[in-house]
């Protein structure tokens, strides 16, 4: 049973077709990198997955259940880092993390993981969110997501704004999650991150998946080129 199964997903905003028949499958225990140029439709796909947007047509399911109809139930089993982190300026980082963990209503205690990730990411939870730098705001969202013991992690450009040291901490964390058998959908522009973490890769361009496969399969397609060269040529449509 796939963890995420998207079939022929179409999403239109008025006249604009943002997603034009997207297929994507994520299996249990897999880190699936989701790549594509700016405006290709990665965030839109994720927002449909989360029931923030309604699919125009096609089917989207998580854990074999319709992602729109069962969104509240499904969200108890997944954690999410938004592509654009906007926090409440007058709440502290610690308050936001607790709030997001509590709203997931899993009923389990997160105290230990919370403290562990605060320490790993060197984040001061007592600052008001308006006072955080961009990277630290990103860390608030990351800690809130990673501290929860979910089965599926949906991460939209989770490391934007992080310094190289923190990028390393993030990669180690994802590798740990993989060992625990968790599934991860990782939208990213950072190719080194993708190379280090991904089992599978899907590339979307102009609302359509143009390439998908395991890393080995993708390497075959690359035929001697580096992954970077492959992506560049795919993005440019050559």
């Amino acid at each position, binding site marked *: 049973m796939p963890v995420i199964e998207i079939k022929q997903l179409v999403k239109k905003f008025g006249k604009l077709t943002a997603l034009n028949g997207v297929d994507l499958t994520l299996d249990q225990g897999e880190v699936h990198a989701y790549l594509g140029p700016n405006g290709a439709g990665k965030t839109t796909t994720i*927002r449909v997955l989360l029931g923030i947007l*309604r699919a125009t047509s096609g089917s989207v399911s998580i854990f074999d259940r319709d992602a729109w109809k069962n*969104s509240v139930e499904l969200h108890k089993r997944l954690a999410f880092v938004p592509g654009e982190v906007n926090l409440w300026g007058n709440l502290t980082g610690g*308050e936001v993390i607790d*709030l997001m963990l509590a*709203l997931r*209503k899993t009923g389990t205690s997160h105290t230990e993981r919370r403290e562990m990730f605060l320490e790993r990411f060197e984040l001061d939870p007592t600052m008001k969110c308006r006072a955080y730098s961009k990277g630290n705001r990103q860390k608030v969202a990351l800690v809130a997501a990673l501290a929860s013991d979910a089965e599926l992690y949906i991460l939209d450009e989770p490391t934007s704004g992080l310094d190289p040291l923190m990028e390393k901490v993030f990669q180690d964390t994802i590798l740990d999650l993989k060992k625990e058998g968790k599934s991860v959908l990782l939208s990213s522009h950072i190719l080194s991150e993708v190379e280090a973490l991904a089992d599978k890769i899907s590339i979307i361009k102009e609302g359509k998946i143009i390439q998908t496969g395991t890393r080995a399969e993708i390497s075959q397609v690359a035929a001697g080129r580096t992954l970077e060269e492959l992506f560049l040529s795919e993005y440019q449509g050559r």
Partner: protein
Amino acid sequence: MSSLAAFWQYTRFILVRERIVGLIWIVALAGSAILFAAMYPGLFSSDAEMQAMAQTMNTPAMVALMGPVYGLDTLNTAIIMAQECLIWFAIAIIIMNIFFVNRYTRADEELGRLEMFRALPVGRLTGVAATMIGALVLNLVIALITVCGLIALNLPGTTVAGAFAYGLAIGAIGFFFAALTLLIAQLLSSSRGVLGVSFALFGLFYVIRAWGDMQNSDLSYASPLGLISRVFAFYENNFWLLAILLGATLVITAVAFVVYVKRDLGEGVIPARPGRKHASRFLQSPFGLAWRLTRNTVFAWAVAAFVMGAVYGSVVGQLDSFLNQNEMIKQIVEGFGENKSLLGSYIAMLFSILAAVGAIPVVNAAMRIYAEEKRGRIEQVYAAAVPRLSLFASFMVIALVQSLIFLTLTVLGIYAAGESTGQLVLADLFKDAFVYLPALFLTLGVAVLLIGLAPRLSLLVWVVPVYSFLYDYFGRLFNLPDWVRNTSPFGVVPQLSLEDFTVVPLVVLTAVGIVFCAVGLAAYRRRDLR
């Protein structure tokens, strides 16, 4: 560059940076000080009317609001003008000074501008000293233009000394708050904190003055606002009070300078207080979040509602003389109930207008959910296991709470200020006010409907209270026919101080409100979020 030359250059730099905003403040403040004064001669056609006005001002609520009444023995237009206007211009100039000083001290420091500047070979005090000179210039210009304007206007009772007392009182209170903000900017390390504490002190001084003035006690002298409200311009012209205020200003400035020189750049004397490490239990729910985001507004509106009620209530005792002063208001009030009791008409008008004002906090609370959506903060909430309806319903509950608080506190304000006349019955006032609850609920329904169906058009909800407000003003003034009144949800509400209770309109308003809420919520559940 000598450090004195650098100092003047920096002062010039501040004034140049301030040329637009500063000029707007100068024109707005000095201009309206003169304009307001110019309107006074037209207000009274006889000395008796003037005395009546002074009596209206002499009620506890009005004294608490605007300061003590003085010079009743030699009452003239200039005295009345100064007594009624001084506090408003004081408030405005205080706001200007707090923002001005914060902008050039802590805010600049936070943004790292001051660091750049301090790297230049200039004296250590240059930045803060230039800021105070800039503030002095602004305040003095406003004060002197006001003085000149008043002398030129030459209202009955004007003296040169009086004009100076009035104008300099405004300038002095402004400069005092410039110094106070300067000191706070040395103590705290965030510009938001500086603004917060400065305004809190301003509020505290205002309350001390209000309390002291109401009790007629010397407590008022402990507040700078109390000092200027006892200058008694055009009467006693107590310049010595202004001298005391200036002395205090200089002492505070000196202390601020010393602290500034001794501390590290970027730091405050009081270290930034770390915030909460954990969320309280209460915050960890959709309603807790909604409440946390709106609670300050709820408290602010509660205070505002009480003050508004008190201002209107303080007139109850002198309705006749109050209405005779102003032909237009009289016509509006009488438009509510011809040949009915004046008090009944007045109360009907009051709640009709206040109910429309009460729609503001109600609509704001409901619209907050859309504001959160626009700022991109709602996605993460719904990505957790939060049903859409539960967050929206939380904001709707807060909107309803706002309506209850608003109506209750306006009633209490009116009663507190007008109770001494013996003409008000608390239970009746509550009934007069709470019949408007269904109209407020309907307004909430319109907001919910728009947020669900057409969020981009949601600002249209303001049409409902604005229409009602306009009808109250112009409908009564021009005696429009009754059916016009029934086109406004606020208009169909029976005005219990004049009319019998009828339940039908209230049921209809509530029912339509429920339908709107249901449709709006259903649409919200199904639509895309931004």
